[in-house]
């Protein structure tokens, strides 16, 4: 499909580096599915839908800066929703979000809450100001916070907060955040034999976004993050490239 035109109807500055853009198009997407966001004349990048009509963007480079600086009335191109989202399973779930990783997890929390599922969220960020969607998560369940600099909640990593829970009490665990965080979370879940009951939303370099070009495949399964993912069960990631390397736009391996 050609990109749809999406006009920005609201700009919400969530944190000093993260901005939500609400648009005039509402997509019928599962939590965790993504769209390809076209900043015309510049680039097209993958973004989770943080709401059916919204994306939530962290400023990291050119395209995300251009998005972060957009105003109401500006427009972007949207292809999607694409990929496999989260599957909601069980009555008691744990969400672990790091940084902008909260974006795909928010609609999952809201869906689960609406269905009466018991929700625990471990929310991490570099610093207190950067905690994303703390308020929204709080409406859905218990939220434990960790910040790298200790400015809010636990001083340290989200992984440290995991030890406060008996992980096997949860029917399913949902994770999105920086690669190294997800890798450590996977280790912990693996130790608790929870890897098959966990779902990770992955990031890789996307080109086509529709499962054809092969840019986003991971070793050794050859899974396409854009089509077979971005949400993948933890057991599929044991002994994978996760946390060790990824490939850049050329296809070259880049160590973490």
């Amino acid at each position: 499909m050609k990109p749809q035109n999406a006009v920005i109807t609201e700009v919400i500055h969530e944190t000093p580096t993260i901005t939500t853009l609400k648009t005039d198009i509402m997509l019928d997407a599962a939590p965790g599915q993504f769209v390809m966001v076209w900043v015309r004349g510049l680039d097209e990048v993958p973004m989770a839908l943080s709401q059916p009509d919204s994306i939530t963007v962290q400023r990291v480079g050119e395209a995300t800066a251009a998005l972060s600086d957009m105003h109401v009335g500006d427009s972007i191109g949207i292809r999607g929703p694409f990929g496999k989202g989260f599957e909601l399973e069980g009555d008691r779930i744990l969400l672990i979000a790091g940084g902008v990783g909260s974006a795909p997890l928010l609609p999952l929390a809201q869906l689960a809450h609406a269905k009466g599922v018991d929700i625990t969220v471990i929310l991490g960020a570099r610093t207190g100001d950067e905690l994303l969607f703390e308020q929204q998560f709080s409406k859905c369940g218990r939220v434990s916070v960790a910040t790298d600099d200790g400015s809010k909640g636990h001083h340290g990593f989200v992984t440290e907060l995991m030890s406060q829970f008996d992980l096997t009490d949860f029917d399913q665990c949902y994770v999105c955040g920086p690669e190294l965080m997800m890798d450590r979370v996977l280790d912990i879940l693996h130790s608790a034999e929870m890897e098959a009951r966990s779902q990770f939303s992955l990031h890789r370099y996307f080109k086509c976004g529709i499962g054809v070009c092969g840019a986003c495949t991971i070793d050794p399964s050859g899974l396409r993050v854009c089509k077979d993912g971005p949400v993948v069960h933890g057991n599929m990631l044991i002994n994978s490239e996760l946390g060790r390397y990824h490939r850049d736009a050329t296809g070259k391996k880049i160590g973490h």
Partner: protein
Amino acid sequence: MTKPDLSIELTGMGMKNPTILAAGVLGTTGSSLKRVANSGAGAVVTKSIGIEPKPGHPNPTMFKLECGFLNAMGLPNPSYKEFRGELDTAKESGVPVIASVFGAHPDEFSKIIDGLDGADAYELNVSCPHASGYGAVVGTDPLLVEEITRAAKQTANAPVWVKLTPNVTDIVAIGEAAQRGGADAVVAINTVRSMAIDIHSGYPILGNLYGGLSGPAIHPVAVKCVYDLYQALDIPVIGVGGIANYQDAVEMMMAGACAVQIGSAIYDSISVFDDVTMGLSEYLVSHGLVLDDIIGLAHRKVGL
């Protein structure tokens, strides 16, 4: 009902069935190629590999249209040195792995082939319609195609296939040049030069502004090219363009293809290789035919 034998020998290379993964589709990594091989492809072609790392064109690089796909990847690749390991991984699949190679002149092709030795065949990409200085820019000049093919043949320890562009006045002239240069087979077709514009803004959609059309839209174009090449050449023709099911494959073979490559149809499912192979098998059984009966059949019908 015995299952017909779909195994073929293509330029001296044994294949369990005549379906091949096309270049540039799920061919970025060894493990991705292995996965496609395990899903039933008789052979796999890597993405086109060059002399230096290239990130490719800016996104958007590919999207679906009503009748096909438009892409301008821009030959992203990590260089043949980096790709060496991916090739070795791909070879673990057990099916033939064909290294697709692109360059600006004969020496580059030779150097890359040398660096990627061990491939079961080499496919020279002289046909990508949207990479300046490479691909079709090279592949529209018969003399250059002949020279490149000759250079590749001198270096390669395995068969050399030449992949042709349909964006020429006379594809047969280019096919003949490849044959003169010593090609073991030609592959037709690469994508058809195309463009799409976003009507909301006026911007061309592809980062590269224009690109190549693939998928169902180009199938009848590919059938015609294969038909003409089969008629004119003595070397095998491998058909590619819009093949999504066994019917498309049968049609391409009747036009003269001895094997088919499948690219865009992977969008629907990676099982397309298995589906095509099974369909082909049932088609042959129900018509009481073997593979050789249908290859080039259209020419024999017309000659009758």
